[in-house]
């Protein structure tokens, strides 16, 4: 396309991109200024960040968040890998139905997932806490991990595996030396994408967390409920920017092996 775009359309789109990014931009900028009750620029400061790092509650919440997100990523990526492998490679009865059920957590409203898990844990008298949050997170991360890895599997050249088998490798060796290395970018991408998925989840965690265990988003929520303080801007900036690094690496890995 060599046409230059109509000015009005470009202007409208620039405005829409501004709409998509302005809130985050404002949040980040005003986390660096001391103004407390109003969004005004009053010079540069790092005091809110200092307050965030010295806050015991936030430290605990970060610990809980990581204690949930890291095992959740490992478990769901592992399960996602073998599920994707089976769904893509094996033809079996009820494959479509299995896939349909697998994607239920992706289409169900978070609210309904959260409520159903709350009722379930209450029903079996399972104590709400870090473990219940972890179980919930794995259950909504498995579909995502599977989806990302299936997308990668579709790009693998099947003939490489056949060649390995023809040259005398058994299934295990083929899987370890051929399939898994080819699948590795997909697995890493799945892990890097499920991490923010778990780390940022609010609605489901809100329902399945007990009294003593709050993750970082829950801590932010209760801070918002208590009143808007610029400390939330600083904490929010960190919460947005740090997991984003993972996402950018994940997307990069996901795209790279296309070429």
């Amino acid at each position: 396309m060599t046409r230059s775009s109509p000015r009005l359309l470009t202007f409208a789109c620039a405005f829409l991109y501004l709409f998509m990014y302005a809130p985050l931009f404002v949040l980040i900028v005003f986390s660096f200024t001391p103004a407390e009750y109003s969004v005004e620029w009053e010079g540069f400061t790092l005091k809110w960040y200092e307050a965030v790092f010295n806050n015991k509650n936030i430290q605990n919440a970060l610990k809980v968040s990581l204690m949930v997100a890291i095992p959740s990523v490992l478990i769901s990526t592992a399960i996602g890998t073998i599920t994707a492998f089976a769904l893509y490679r094996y033809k079996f009865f009820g494959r479509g139905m299995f896939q349909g059920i697998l994607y239920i957590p992706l289409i169900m409203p978070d609210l309904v997932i959260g409520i159903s898990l709350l009722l379930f844990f209450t029903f079996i008298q399972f104590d709400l806490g870090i473990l219940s949050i972890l179980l919930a997170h794995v259950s909504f991360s498995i579909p995502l991990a599977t989806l990302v890895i299936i997308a990668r599997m579709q790009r693998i050249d099947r003939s490489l595996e056949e060649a390995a088998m023809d040259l005398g490798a058994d299934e295990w060796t083929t899987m370890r030396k051929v399939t898994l290395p080819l699948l590795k970018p997909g697995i890493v991408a799945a892990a890097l994408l499920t991490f923010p998925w778990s780390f940022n989840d609010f609605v489901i965690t809100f329902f399945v967390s007990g009294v003593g265990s709050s993750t970082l988003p829950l801590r932010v929520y209760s801070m918002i409920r208590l009143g808007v303080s610029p400390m939330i801007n600083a904490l929010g900036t960190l919460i947005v920017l740090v997991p984003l690094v993972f996402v950018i690496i994940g997307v990069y890995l996901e795209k790279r092996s296309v070429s």
Partner: protein
Amino acid sequence: MSDGNSVAYHGAPCGHEEARRAGSIIRHQRPLASFLPASRMMVFDLRKVRRSIFRFFRTHPGFRTGAALSPAAFWLTIFTLIPMGIVIYYSFLTRGPWGTIEYTFTLDSYRQIFDPLFLKIFARSFKMAGLTVAICLVAGYLIAYWIAFYGGRHKNLLLFLVILPFWTSYLVRIYAWITLLSDHGLINNFLVKVQLIDAPLPLLHNQFSVLTGLVYTYLPFMILPLYASLERLDRSILEAAADLGATAMERFYKITLPLTKAGVFSGSVLVFAPAIGEFLVPELLGGAKVMMIGKFIALKFIGLRHWPLGSAYSLMLLTIILILLYLYMRAGGGKDAFREQQ
């Protein structure tokens, strides 16, 4: 040792009956009995165990598939399907005093769906979700069209920027709107400073702020399917129409729009379904005034502890979403998404 034994046990049928049936493919393999002395000597040879597992899987593809799918199946059954069943179960129970549950069967919760208050909240949620779809459709079409037709070599970057916020904290992004819209927020501060207004405008805690939050949250869901269908559009049709004298408007209404109908439909469903049940946006940006069905259900669970009623309402919400998704799949939306994946 126990591992070796269990494998030998599983492998036994494949060594004898199956091998005879499968014929030449299996015949060259060592008979399974040759593993037995090893396990009797309590030597654990991982490679042999592994080989016999794979041999078993090769001859029993059903077991192989089952073994690979069982972790996901197990997890989904326990943490998705059974909890859904429990929601259905609770929706038929009675609420006792102080939010306790009495185990007597009743249809009361379903009868309360026709409560005028609930119907009003439901109608409002429908309206808000519908408006969100309408606004996202216009805005999303502009962006998708611009990226698809004028994006040039920046197409991927522009698309990536559309998806990126989706991976950041949704709570923090909605909170960020408070810093923009509140009485002492950026917008009001600016307007007061340039003396356009004397007192801050009521931008927060009303339908406007909830709508803003909903559009902001779900716009990417609209842009992606629209972009996909615009990308697939055969440009030569547009060129032919232009050669035949169609104006830009005619080309858009008679060609572009009808050919991207699938994208419009998918995007609308993908925005409407989560928007109608949204909990956090009305919670943070709506204040006490803008009640939506999602927030109402959450209140039934947290504040009032009326679990049977909350369960019945959740099931109704889920039913609406499932009907929408069914219509979407039937219209070929699912196939579209699958093609996109490939």
